């Protein structure tokens, strides 16, 4: 017979399975009405899953390990470098006209240890780093 932890774990896994099914179903829908139905239920399945997780977490049965702050810093630095590499590649793309076209503002996250991440619309340093050409075929 299952104990309390087994039952919660089984319910959690069932929720993940069902949510995945709704996500795929929504992605593969052609009709807006069906897509909205799948998406709406998906959100509710996610909330049920989170409710079960919270219950397990409060009982000490599912406690995800916190990420090492140094690893977070290192990863953010790496992602910023990758972003710069992608922007550089885009800027030298043959036919690209960076001075024309609509302005696509991309946020560069400056990260310092001990400083919280910039809030949306707050301290984020907004820079226009790449402007796609009006006509990519040129």
């Amino acid at each position, binding site marked *: 017979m299952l104990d309390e932890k087994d*039952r919660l774990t089984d319910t959690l896994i069932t929720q993940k399975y069902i949510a995945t*099914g709704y996500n795929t179903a929504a992605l593969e829908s052609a009709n807006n009405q069906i897509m909205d139905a799948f998406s709406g239920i998906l959100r*509710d399945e996610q909330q049920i899953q989170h409710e079960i997780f919270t219950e397990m977490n409060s009982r000490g049965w599912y406690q995800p390990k916190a990420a090492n702050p140094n690893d977070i810093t290192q990863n953010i630095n790496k992602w910023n470098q990758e972003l710069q590499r992608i922007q550089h590649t885009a800027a030298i793309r043959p036919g690209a006209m960076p001075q024309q076209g609509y302005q696509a503002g991309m946020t560069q996250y400056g990260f310092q240890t001990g400083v919280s991440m910039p809030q949306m619309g707050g301290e984020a340093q907004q820079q226009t780093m790449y402007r796609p050409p009006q006509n990519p075929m040129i």
Partner: protein
Amino acid sequence: MQLTEMELFHLGEQLRAEALAITKSTTCARETTDPKLQQMYLRIAERHRGHYEILMRNAQNFAQQRQF
């Protein structure tokens, strides 16, 4: 637009999964000795029942459209 084969397939798959989830949650509610968890399982079973009805309603809407 008519219901596609893929949508019909997913409706069937999700209905099967919801039916199983209702049965499982109801069984868990019966077996647990924790009143708080019992209430939670019953609430979850009810929500899955609601999902089942939404899926059925959508399937029936398309079946009715086809008749006209």
